[in-house]
């Protein structure tokens, strides 16, 4: 039985769930591949983001990608390049300001983010005013995995490999310095250098996530599945696998729902993919917290 016949059979059986044409659309093929790649990289990097409490840095890099994406639109190159370039520069600046205590670190992140967001405001303004690229703003900010061109797959794959190699090469020292920077430093691990290299991996992961669900929503993919996984298991390796599955699941289900939503009210327009992905990720996080919450409640009830 050919793959086509198989998918037709699947469509026939799942007709109420999967709308016709889902498996033959090129945009869906690309979305499924890119979404999975971005979710896997985000999972591998995101576990450490959660362990190091660097969600704000992830969020900041995502927002800063907005400036990069707008600059790329203005210069007429692919948004991916602008996002990657700006994220790497911003990660370097944050590292240079380098306040290591969490409170001060968030402040430094915030100041850098503010400056770049100001720049994003200017660039988006120039885009809408002089380029008349009306759709550009929404595409950069909220993304649509359906608009990623097939020709970008090799580039995205290459960047994913770089990010994964960084995490794999640093795995053990990164893990130790994320759990306790004092112990890591005492063992002679160059904590600061590891942190800088990790920030680079994070910049790449955020840029990839930005391509699929948009710059300002990319944090969802980076932090959500990882935080959910870390609630379910304490073992980092297992957590990465669980986070990758959750992320890929949310992406694929989101793509499917967005495709189907064309037939929902208000009719004639699909709902944004990013909305579904973000909502699914948030629900997974809430559900993963239920056992602990119920346990705490029954304990207080007994007491």
């Amino acid at each position, binding site marked *: 039985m050919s793959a086509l016949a198989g998918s037709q059979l699947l469509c026939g059986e799942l007709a109420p769930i999967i709308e016709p044409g889902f498996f033959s659309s090129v945009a869906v093929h690309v979305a499924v591949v890119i979404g999975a790649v971005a979710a896997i990289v985000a999972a591998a990097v995101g576990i450490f983001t959660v362990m190091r409490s660097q969600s704000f840095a992830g969020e900041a890099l995502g927002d800063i990608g907005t400036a990069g994406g707008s600059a790329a639109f203005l210069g007429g190159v692919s948004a991916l390049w602008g996002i990657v370039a700006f994220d790497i520069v911003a990660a370097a600046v944050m590292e240079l300001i380098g306040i290591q205590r969490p409170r001060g670190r*968030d402040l430094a992140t915030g100041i850098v983010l503010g400056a770049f967001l100001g720049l994003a405001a*200017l660039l988006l303004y120039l885009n809408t005013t002089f380029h008349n690229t009306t759709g*550009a703003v929404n595409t950069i900010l909220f993304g649509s995995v359906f608009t990623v061109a097939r020709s970008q797959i090799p580039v995205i794959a290459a960047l994913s490999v770089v990010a994964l190699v960084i995490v794999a090469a640093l795995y053990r020292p990164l893990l130790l310095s994320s759990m306790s920077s004092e112990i890591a430093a005492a063992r002679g691990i160059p904590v600061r250098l590891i942190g800088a290299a990790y920030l680079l991996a994070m910049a790449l992961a955020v840029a990839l996530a930005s391509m699929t669900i948009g710059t300002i929503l990319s944090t969802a993919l980076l932090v959500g599945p990882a935080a959910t996984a870390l609630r379910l298991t304490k073992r980092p390796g297992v957590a990465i696998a669980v986070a990758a599955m959750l992320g890929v699941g949310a992406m694929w289900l989101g793509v499917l729902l967005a495709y189907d939503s064309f037939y929902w009210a208000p009719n004639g327009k699909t709902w944004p993919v990013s909305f579904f992905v973000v909502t699914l990720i948030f629900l997974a996080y809430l559900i993963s917290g239920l056992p602990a919450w119920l346990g705490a409640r029954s304990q207080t009830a007994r007491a």
Partner: protein
Amino acid sequence: MFSGFMVNAWTVASIVAVVAGAVGFFAVLRGSAFVAHAVPNGSFAGAAWASLVGINTLVGLGIFSLLGALGIGLLGRRGRHDVVTALALVLMLGLGSLFLSFSGEYAPEVTSVLFGEVLGISANQVAPTAVLALVCIAAIAVLYRPLMLSSVLGEVGEARGVSSFRMELSFLAVVALVATMTVPVVGTTLIFSLMIGAPAAARSLTDRPLLAMTLSVAIALVTVWSAIAAAYTTDYPVGFFVGGVSAGAYTVARAWAAWRRRRHVDAGPAFGTSTPTAALPS
């Protein structure tokens, strides 16, 4: 620049700067830069919802920023605080993108909510902004002592009966109010720049809380005034100048503090053994 409709812009923007400077002082003291970013940014969904169902933007902003702030506060009790903040923020932005796709708003409106549109401030915005500002200032005045204690020495506060959780929720509610009144002026993305940049600069200049708060308000006012003047002359978005000036003020203040520290080290060991009141954690 100072006539006609611009009078409203100057009035509203000045009120906003005073409140952002005062509330932002606590945001910096508590290290809640992320929350100060997330609550206003997430209220974007409120603006999108208001325009979808056709009600006053301020109402939409108010409802969503309060819901977001309380959600972060409640969920943050059980989860990691930064994770909860990030997820609440993206959920609200995701909802915003959904509302946006329903209402079919086009780019200029979106950018003006995100990055501010001072020139669009009308006379009927002055009164609500002033009322919200008074509520914020009153809340900060009432909360001043317990909030200060809970922000600087959380455990001592708990021992004296100041609940950290209740302080966190109250503070988040105040941030939500600030977000509601500030969005129309500098936009959802850059309020936090005003709330973080000016107080952080002030904190680098002095360790005394009241002086730092006053300085913070002054720097915020200068930031907003110069941003409006620049936006008026160049026609670029206000947010661009607010973000730039805030970052600039922080850089200058940090540089000045570093220079002063080095001079004191050269002069002798007196600096660093100062009075306990100066020992606020930075």
